C-alpha cells in the first residue's frame, strides 16, 4: 500500500484519446482518459474486455502507434510529453523509466533464448555495463523476485519455468533498470490463485522497497481491493468512476460500478442470487450517444442522452460520470438484501 507520497505525480495522463480506423468504422478505444500516479502508490484500472484499459496502458509507452491510430492528449513523464516524443526517444523510456509486464509470461519471453540472455539484453540496452556486470545484475534481480537456485536457472529456457516463475522473470526484467513507473497489465490473470497470491505479495514488497508507482490493469475487483490505492473504472472507452479504493468499494457512485460489485460471486460470503448487468457492452464503433452505459442501466432517464462529465459528486477526489444526484445514487444502489448492485429490469 501507499508509502510516502512525494512531490507530485510521476506520470500524468490528460485527456487521452485513441481511435483506430478500421474497415468497419472508427473504433474509439479510449475516449478522454485522465489520471495521474504518484511514487509509492498503486493505481488500479478496472473494466471488462474491450473497455480500453489495455489500450490506455499501451498508449502511455507508444505501443499503439500504428498507421491507423489517431492519438491525442498529453502524457507527462519527467516534464516531457510522451505522446509527442519520437519513437527513438521513447525507446529510452520503455524499460527504463517506465516498464511494463503483460498477462501472458510465456508469449512475452522469447522461447529460443535463455532467460539470462534476455535479462542481460534488457539491462545493457539501458545501462553501460559489460556482459559480466550485466549478468551479475541479472542474477541479483532473479534473487530479488524470489527465484530459487538463480545461478542455475539463469541458463534455462522459458519453457523450463512454471507460469508463476515466468511471471517472476518478467518482473525481474521490468525492474532491471529501476523504473519510476511499472505498468502491469493483468499480471496474475493467467495464474492459479495460490501463485497469484505469491506474485501480488512480491509486487507489493518490491514496490515498498523500490518506491515505484504501479499502474495495475485488471478485471478482478478482488485484486484491486487488495493492492490498489486509487482506482479508475472504465467502460466502453471512458473512465466512468475514479476515486480512492475505499471510496470505490464503500461509496460507489456509478451504476456500472454497482453492477460490477453486485455481479461478483464472493468467496467470503454466500449470496442468494447475483445481481447481473443485463445486455452486453456496446461496440466501440457505434457506442450509444450520451452515457455509454445507458442501454444497460435500469436507472436511465432523459438526461442520459447527453454525455455526463466526469465530475466530483461524493467527494473532491471522487469523480464519476453519471447524471443522477448523490442522494438518488445512494438510494438506488442498495438492493433489497442490503448489498450494492444493479436492479434487474422488470
Amino acid at each position, binding site marked *: 500500500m501507499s508509502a510516502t507520497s512525494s512531490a507530485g505525480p510521476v506520470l500524468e495522463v490528460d485527456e487521452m484519446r485513441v481511435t483506430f480506423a478500421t474497415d468497419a468504422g472508427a473504433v474509439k478505444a479510449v475516449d478522454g482518459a485522465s489520471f495521474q500516479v504518484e511514487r509509492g502508490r498503486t493505481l488500479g484500472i478496472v473494466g471488462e474486455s474491450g473497455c480500453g484499459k489495455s489500450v490506455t496502458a499501451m498508449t502511455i509507452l507508444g505501443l499503439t502507434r500504428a498507421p491507423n491510430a489517431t492519438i491525442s492528449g498529453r502524457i507527462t513523464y519527467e516534464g516531457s510529453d510522451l505522446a509527442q516524443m519520437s519513437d527513438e526517444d521513447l525507446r529510452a523510456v520503455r524499460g527504463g523509466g517506465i516498464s511494463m509486464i503483460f498477462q501472458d509470461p510465456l508469449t512475452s519471453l522469447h522461447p529460443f533464448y535463455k532467460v539470462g540472455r534476455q535479462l542481460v539484453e534488457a539491462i545493457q540496452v539501458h545501462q553501460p555495463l559489460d556482459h559480466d556486470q550485466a549478468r551479475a545484475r541479472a542474477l541479483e534481480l532473479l534473487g530479488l523476485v524470489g527465484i530459487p537456485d538463480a545461478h542455475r536457472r539463469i541458463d534455462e529456457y522459458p519453457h523450463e519455468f512454471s507460469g508463476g516463475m515466468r511471471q517472476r522473470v518478467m518482473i525481474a526484467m521490468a525492474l532491471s533498470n529501476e523504473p519510476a513507473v511499472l505498468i502491469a497489465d493483468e499480471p496474475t490473470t493467467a495464474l*492459479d490463485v495460490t501463485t497469484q*497470491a*505469491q506474485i501480488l505479495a512480491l509486487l507489493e514488497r518490491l514496490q515498498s522497497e523500490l518506491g515505484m508507482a504501479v499502474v495495475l490493469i485488471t478485471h478482478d475487483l478482488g485484486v484491486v481491493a487488495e493492492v490498489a490505492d486509487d482506482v479508475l473504472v472504465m467502460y466502453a472507452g471512458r473512465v466512468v468512476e475514479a476515486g480512492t479504493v475505499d471510496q470505490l468499494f464503500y461509496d460507489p457512485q456509478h451504476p456500472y460500478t454497482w*453492477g460490477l460489485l453486485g455481479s461478483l460471486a464472493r468467496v467470503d460470503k*454466500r449470496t442468494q*442470487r447475483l445481481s447481473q*448487468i443485463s445486455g452486453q457492452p456496446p461496440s466501440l464503433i457505434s457506442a450509444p450517444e450520451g452515457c455509454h452505459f445507458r442501454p444497460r442501466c435500469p436507472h436511465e432517464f432523459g438526461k442520459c442522452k447527453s454525455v455526463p462529465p466526469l465530475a466530483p459528486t461524493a467527494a473532491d477526489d471522487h469523480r464519476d460520470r453519471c447524471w443522477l444526484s448523490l442522494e438518488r445514487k445512494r438510494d438506488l444502489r442498495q438492493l433489497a438484501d442490503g448489498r450494492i448492485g444493479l436492479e434487474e429490469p422488470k
Partner: protein
Amino acid sequence: MSEPAATASSTLETPGRTAGAEPLLEVENLVKHFPIKAGILFDRQVGSVQAVDGVSLHINAGETLGLVGESGCGKSTLCRSILRLIEPTSGSVRFMGQELTELRRPRLRSIRREMQMIFQDPYASLNPRKRVSQIVGDPLALHGVSSAKGRRQIVKELLERVGLNPEHHDRFPHEFSGGQRQRIGIARALALRPKLIIADEPVSALDVSIQAQIINLLDELQGEFDLTYLFVAHDLGVVRHVSDRIAVMYLGRIVEIGPAEAVYQNPIHPYTLSLLSAIPVPDPRANAAREPLVLEGDVPSPANPPPACRFHPRCPYATSICSEVEPQLVDHGGGHWAACHHPLNREDPEGVERAVAPAGS
C-alpha cells in the same frame, strides 16, 4: 439398495454418501494415468502422468457438486473420464445404477443422452461452420428425436429459454458474443433433456457481468429441468455460489469433500485453507484483515508426484508422517471428509492419528 455394489464395505463407500439414497452418479476409485513414452522404433513406457489417481465421489440427484483445484490437478480429466470421453485406466463409474466403464458403445451412446457437457471456451466448443440451429439440433437428430420440423421448433424454444433471440437460429457462432455463445452451448447441452450436466469451467472465459448472467441462467435451469450439475471451476467464489457440496482436488486426488458452507467456513485440509485464503475479496478492509496462507513453490508434476500426502512439500503443517503415510479420506462428521494427518478447524480430532515427530526431515 438393490445394487449389489452399493452394499460394499465401508472402505469402498464414496465419502459423504448417505446410506439408503441412491446417488445419480457414483465414482469409485477412478484412475486415469497417461503413459509417457520414449524410444525410437518401439515405444517404451517410461512413466505415467497420474492425472486422476483414485478418486471417489458421488452426486445426488438435483444437487450441484463443485469441483475445485488449480490447473493441472486433474479436474478436466476426471470429467472426461466420467463420460468416457477418455477411457479411464481403472475404477468404476455408476450412473443411474449402470456401470459405465463396462458398457459397449451403442449402449454407452444411449445413456450419454442423460449426461451432457458444457465447455469452457465458447469459441472452440462450437463448430464455426454450422448454424446455431444445427449445433443445438444435432444432438436431437443424432438420437433420433422428433422430425426435422419438430426439431426446429424445439431448437427455437431452447434458444428462447437460454435468452437468445429464436430468430437468430440460422446464424453462425461468429455472429455472437462470448456470453451468447456460452448460451448456445447451454442450449445444446439441454437439448436432450439430460439428468446430469458436467460444466467444465463454464464461466471462466467470460467477463464478470456476463458471468453473473450465465450463473443465474444455470441456476434457473436447474430447477426448471431437474438438473444435477458437476460444476468445475477454479474461481472459488463462483463455486461457493453455485454448489451444494464441494470437492477439492490436488494432484489427481480429492483432498477434501463436504457441504459447501462447511468447507468454506471450516476447511479441514491445509490446501483448502490456502486456496480460500489466497483469494483477495472485493472489500479493501476485509482484505487488510485477511491473513493469507501463502504457499511456497509450485504444484509438483503429476508425472512424479511426492510420496504419501502429495501436498506435504508445500504444506506449512507437514511433519514426517506426511511423507511416509498416505492420508485417507476420513469422515469428520456432517458429510465432511478430508485426507490429512493434521486436520484444521477440528476441536476433537478423534480417530485421526496425530504425528509425534517434530517438523522437518
